[in-house]
């Protein structure tokens, strides 16, 4: 029997896995910091959308992808400041503010996109970050195609995750973030400024989420469409829990989502399958959630002060 089609099928799925996981991974790693600091930002979906639109419009107008990425980062910082102002300084309910972000994100980007792009008659596509092969490593059969033929924003996750882990566990900053999420009063009594640490936690989260959003237009699809994030912000929230609030855990959980996302894309592309495509599209979401339910029985505790405003 000929094994080659099977191997090629597997190779194409695995090669897509990492790419599919990337936007979720950026958002989830950032949200790990937010939640570890005691703040739950369910507005990630909205923040990612705003990041995606900011990234797309600047990159499109300037013709420069890096400028687009910087614009997305700026939008993330802005979103974060607004979110933090309401949840930390004013101490509004985090769920309400987060939900508002999701609605505003969808609304604003939708309106702006229609006004400036959808009916403008312009050619809307960008030239995205292109995959490039790593010399030598890219020539390894199978693995080379799977791991070493990606674009820059995908490779960057290899740097982001260990760096995030190092900051969270091995620096004074990381300890402070953990402390204000677990026992803010204790942090206060040793001189840590609790609101300031939570501002940082939120800003890291929204900035990373915006980068994740920008990835979708700058390194994946080549243009913005309304609602392009399609629930990835919510999956990132699930991934944080599933990854037990650690950067490496978030990476594992994102890859799980990625593998099923790639699988369903591949099955759709085969064309001859009788399953309605809506079911296939739902697959990665459903599977991620089922795994989440099954595996969180280990019961890693969430940060104790998660969602609770301080004082």
């Amino acid at each position, binding site marked *: 029997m000929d094994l080659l089609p099977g191997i090629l099928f597997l190779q194409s799925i695995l090669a897509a896995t990492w790419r599919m996981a990337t936007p979720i991974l950026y958002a989830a790693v950032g949200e790990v910091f937010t939640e570890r600091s005691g703040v739950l930002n369910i507005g990630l979906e909205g923040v990612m959308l705003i990041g995606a639109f900011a990234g797309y419009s600047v990159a499109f107008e300037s013709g420069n992808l890096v400028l687009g990425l910087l614009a997305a980062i700026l939008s993330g910082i802005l979103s974060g400041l607004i979110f933090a102002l309401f949840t930390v300084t004013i101490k509004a309910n985090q769920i309400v503010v987060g939900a508002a972000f999701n609605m505003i994100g969808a609304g604003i980007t939708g309106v702006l996109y229609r006004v400036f792009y959808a009916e403008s008659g312009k050619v809307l596509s960008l030239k995205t970050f292109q995959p490039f092969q790593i010399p030598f490593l890219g020539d390894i059969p199978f693995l080379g195609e799977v791991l070493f033929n990606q674009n820059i924003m995908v490779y960057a996750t290899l740097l982001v995750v260990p760096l995030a882990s190092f900051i969270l566990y*091995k*620096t004074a900053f990381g300890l402070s973030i953990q402390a204000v999420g677990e026992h803010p009063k*204790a942090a206060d009594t040793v001189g840590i400024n609790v609101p300031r640490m939570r501002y940082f936690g939120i800003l890291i989260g929204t900035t990373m989420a915006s980068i994740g959003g920008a990835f979708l237009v700058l390194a994946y699809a080549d243009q913005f469409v309304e609602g392009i994030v399609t629930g990835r912000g919510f999956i990132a929230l699930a991934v944080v829990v599933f990854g037990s609030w650690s950067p490496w855990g978030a990476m594992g959980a994102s890859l799980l989502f990625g593998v099923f996302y790639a699988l369903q894309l591949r099955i759709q592309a085969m064309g001859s399958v009788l399953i309605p495509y809506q079911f296939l599209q739902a697959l990665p979401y459903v599977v991620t959630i089922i795994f989440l339910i099954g595996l969180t029985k280990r019961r890693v505790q969430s940060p104790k002060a998660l969602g609770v405003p301080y004082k």
Partner: protein
Amino acid sequence: MKDCIVRMENIVKSFGSVRASRGVNLEVCPGEIHCLLGENGAGKTVLMSILYGLYQPDSGDIYYKNKKITIGSPKDAINLRIGMVHQHFMLVPTLTVAENIVLGQYPAWKVLSDMPAIQEKIYQLSKEFDLNVHPEALVQDLSVGEQQRVEILKALYHGADLLVLDEPTAVLTPQESEHLLSFLRELADKGLTILFITHKLEEVMQVSDRVTILRDGKAIATVNTSETNPRELARMMVGRDVLMELMKKEGESGEVIFSVRNLNVKDEKGLPAVKNLSLEVREREVVGIAGVSGNGQTELALALAGLVESQFDEIILNKHSLTQKDLSRLNHLGMAHIPEDRQKMGLILPFSVSENFIAETYRNEPFSKKGFLQFRTIKDYSNMLVKKFSIRVGDVDEAIANLSGGNQQKVVVARELDRRPKFLLVNQPTRGIDIGATEFVRQQILAERDAGSAILLISTDLEEIFALSDRILVMYEGRIMGEVPPDHNRVEEIGLMMAGKTEATA
């Protein structure tokens, strides 16, 4: 003039309309153990929180080592070498001991590459003071006593000259308390100054050099411990004479109201906690269960209240034999229960005082008619209970969480006793409440006995057992070791049984 390390002058602090400190003066000498004695709400913790920089005083001056200072934050306090062990520990459970100790001490960008060296330093310090703390252990894996040692070590690591401890023995077993007090004496002998907040008179007498008594936000007096006695301290603390011994009426006990035969209960981990235990309680009788905490008392109470499953040959209440299923609706069968932990089991903290009063009876007439709560009836009833049990509360619609511990406990006691139970199960009725409330609660329990109830009292406070019981059973490792009458001459016998000697060998 005497040299002092801390002088607080005329400290005033208000929270809204509540005046917590109304011009307090305090002087502490270097190297002494100085107790701050007062009831709950007297302003002890607030005063110490001001000294530690958690609150800013509205007015008043603080002098430290002969310099006038302002302490703007805990960080300032730490830099001034003031350490504080809070009543609720300020440790992050998910971090290690070492991480907790260095938390907040470095600039944010600092990479913690020298953790092994820090751990070694902590280990040496722990050895020097014989604290037996492992720097790499996660705080959440430590016992309460160990966590307290970590808190003390944290202060020592930061080089504290002045150590403030807020009711440190409230969470400890008697043995741990004993150990802590002698350890504090050693520290003082090494030159550390210790400020010790408490409302327990015995501790003041045992450990302190001097004591300042606080009442209603004012310092009433500072006295040398060697020149005072518990009765005088209690009078200054409460503002009136306190009955140190309750009057217990002699009375014949009647027939058996409650009995249990061969009860077996498992603890949370599934290990046997109560083993073949049998007892009976008669009409007009208090049976006290003495013992060191953790010998199955909690499980015994939970089982008798029907809150955990148990195996037994027979439980008889009021001549009816009960099944496991009956146990879960015991309050309908004439039993009342004052649980060990009022905040977790006795009360619903976010609810109002009156809602807590009717928590068990809200479905019944007259509090509810045709499914609707009768607010006026409930309010009248609540006001009646508040008055009868002299509970200090502004309004019965206020959240119970705002009341002091003593008043919260009175609410539980009022609710349970007003149902006129045939059988009353009481577990640690006065733990963590002030002397005035303690006196009141104990009187109520005795009054209930005189009215004819059968009462089973579980307490780790031997003084309380003696004050209230007609018969004392001593519990050790889930078994009853023997029965002793409440005769002070037989304390030693009880002590031996508490340590596991049976009646025959004691």
